[in-house]
């Protein structure tokens, strides 16, 4: 095992390179991914190495990209599609939800569509409109798709390779706030030695509160755990890694010990991933709960302009506020810090 220090973006590129080397049917398609190497340089150098027939600059039409990927997979290829920014995926929605996700079931299992859709996701970088979306709930809600969200450079490399090797379509979210964070990475790690793609991971052990999150907010959660420990509160942080399926067993095991759940994500709260986790925890761990689950999330508003985005993206203080609420140090309930009943 040889590790290198890589940014998350470079680790993704290394994972792609490994997958393309291992399997000649892996093709990469997207806008500006060839000579430019992608707007985030994730595919930097791949076209020079593998040629323009395997690293394909597409016309600017996301539905066209996804529809093409469906056809390629039909023919036996493993396309890896880059959607340039999260907000651009919606024009490909039918091809993802009605075509890609359902084709295996529609053909009674005859057709497998191992398509990986890479999407730089979420905000916090002062971007333009439609460049800071958190659309994960749409895809988690769609049968036939797997949805993953990586938080570390090593996961970036290995989970991407697992997604490409998976015979199901996978929506692969890349936290764009974390693209430049560095870590030790073994891009060639045997996939059998890596945790399975659908599993969560406890990234900080704790006893008082279970804090579940994914993607860019794993870092926020770890900061919160450090800050809370200064006040004598022990937080267990779980990096979900997979949003479909959700590793409910790992979450439930933690909540049964801590009795308290905070779910943290940036996407809107209503029918979000946090709602699903709070529901399942309530169903499975009801008698262990010391307090109602708390959701610290983005609000149910359009993503705001850059100067206002700190009102939408949960930060350390909002996470600590959520921890206070689940511990009974502040009025309980999601979004009810002023004791105001909401949602009535």
């Amino acid at each position, binding site marked *: 095992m040889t590790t290198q220090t890589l940014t998350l973006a470079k680790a993704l590129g290394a994972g792609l390179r490994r997958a393309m080397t291992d399997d*000649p049917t892996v*093709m990469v398609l997207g806008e500006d991914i060839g000579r430019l190497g992608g707007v985030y340089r994730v595919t930097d150098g791949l076209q020079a190495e593998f040629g323009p*027939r*395997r690293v394909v600059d*597409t*016309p600017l*039409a996301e*539905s*066209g990209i*996804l*529809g*093409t*990927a*469906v*056809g*390629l*997979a*039909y*023919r*036996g*290829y493993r*396309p890896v599609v880059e959607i340039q920014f999260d907000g651009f995926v919606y*024009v490909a929605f*039918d*091809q993802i939800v*009605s*075509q890609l996700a*359902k084709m*295996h*079931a*529609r*053909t*009674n*299992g*005859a*057709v*497998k569509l*191992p398509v990986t859709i890479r999407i730089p996701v979420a905000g916090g970088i002062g971007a333009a409109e439609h460049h800071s979306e958190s659309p994960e709930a749409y895809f988690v809600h769609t*049968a*036939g798709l*797997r949805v993953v969200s990586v938080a570390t450079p090593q996961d970036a490399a290995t989970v991407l390779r697992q997604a490409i090797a*998976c*015979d*199901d379509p996978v929506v692969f979210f890349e936290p764009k706030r974390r693209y430049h964070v560095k870590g030790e990475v073994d891009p060639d790690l045997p996939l059998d030695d890596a945790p399975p793609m*659908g599993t969560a991971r406890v990234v900080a052990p704790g006893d008082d509160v279970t804090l579940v999150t994914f993607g860019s907010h794993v870092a926020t959660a770890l900061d919160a755990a450090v800050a809370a420990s200064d006040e004598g509160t022990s937080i267990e942080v779980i990096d979900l890694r997979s949003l*479909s*399926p*959700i590793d409910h067993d790992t979450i439930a095991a933690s909540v049964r010990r801590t009795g308290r759940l905070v779910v943290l994500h940036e996407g809107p709260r209503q029918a979000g991933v946090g709602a699903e986790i709070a529901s399942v925890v309530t169903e499975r761990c009801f008698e262990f709960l010391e307090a109602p689950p708390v959701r610290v999330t983005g609000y149910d508003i359009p993503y705001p302009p850059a100067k206002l985005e700190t009102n939408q993206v949960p930060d350390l203080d909002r996470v600590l506020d959520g921890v206070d609420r689940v511990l009974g140090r502040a009025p309980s309930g999601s979004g009810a810090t002023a004791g105001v009943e909401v949602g009535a």
Partner: protein
Amino acid sequence: MPSTMGSTSRDDLSRAGGARTETASGTTDGTTAGSTDDGWGGGAARTVGVLDEKGVRHPDPALDRWLTDVDAGDQEARATLLGLYEDMVVARRIDAEATALQRQGELALWPPLQGQEAAQVGSATALRDDDFVFSSYREHAVARRRGVTPVDLLRVWRGVTASGWDPYSVGMATPQVIIGAQALHGVGYALGIQADVERGVVAPVTGSSDDGTPAAVAYVGDGAMSQGDVNEAFVFAATWQVPYVLFCQNNQWAISEPVTLQSPVPLVQRASGFGVPGVRVDGNDVLAVLAVTREALHRARTGGGPTFVEAVTYRMGPHTTADDPTRYRDASELDAWAERDPIARLAAYLRAGGLLTDDDEARVREAADAVAAELRAGVVAIEDPTPLSVFDHVYAEPHPTVAAERAEHAAYLEGFADATGTTTTGTTTTDRAAQGADR
């Protein structure tokens, strides 16, 4: 070739979808050519053909070169022509039987193809086994030509499955309901063929009349021409020059919307703006359809890139068995198109040449009736799938959420075992009620 068809009424019908009341009868007298020029809206579009409405064969060198086998005048040519005729007759018979089965409650829904037999049989006959078809939901004659059995054709419409066949076993994807989505799948599949050839895992065929690589063909309708996916398919196919044919059956109607609502100019004109060769063919002329599809496939197979075919035809029946066309189109329009019936036209041509005898017709009719009888017996014998099969094939690899829900539903169904004597079929309200106070 120069047009000798003076009247424009045929083309008025082609473009109007229905608002006009001219009839096609009388516009041809047997002396006109099949190919015509059209003065539709913003520009002219030539409609190529070789059989006129009376079934008279007219020369067109551009098309004739693709029809040397059917023009050969030998027994093989006769067999091919009779095969085209039989495929069309049987397709219409299957269509009629399916409509009857729907009326009798044996099918949930049926989208009839009547009127489009030549467009479908002609184009599908041009295909090789190693080509791949992505169709919409009305291409029953194409599916049959690919090898789908009539019973398999109807499974989806009986509501027992999402797919009546394995796409890889016949080289044809299962029907697409989202309008135009399949056009892009064909482009991607063709890109895969291109990649296969470059990687050396597929070798072009040599030494036959249709040499070259496999190709992908997508069938769409006139309504689909407005969809973004179809327009994106044009762009992607042109950019990559993939082996692809986009075959549009312009049957004049998208449910109640005439084709003029989709486009102020002939649909074929779209192609040139995308840099794709386009041809507009009389879709009720099976020989012309065969010829233009062969040419398009030849271009695809030999590195010439994609082609767009607009086959001008007519949906003689409703959009589906749930539709009522009398609400939006005149009976006179149907009468006019009946004069241009694709089967009658080929029959007239064959009879005039002594290639179709009374005995042949009787034999074909009997064959069609036999298919219909087999179809009916097969369809009514299809059993409902087991309830838990709804959890099959959601994912190709294990997924704990679906596994848990499957177990949950199995346990739920088990609860009816005492009342019904079965463990997996008791899902109806009646069964639940039978449980009475136990539940």
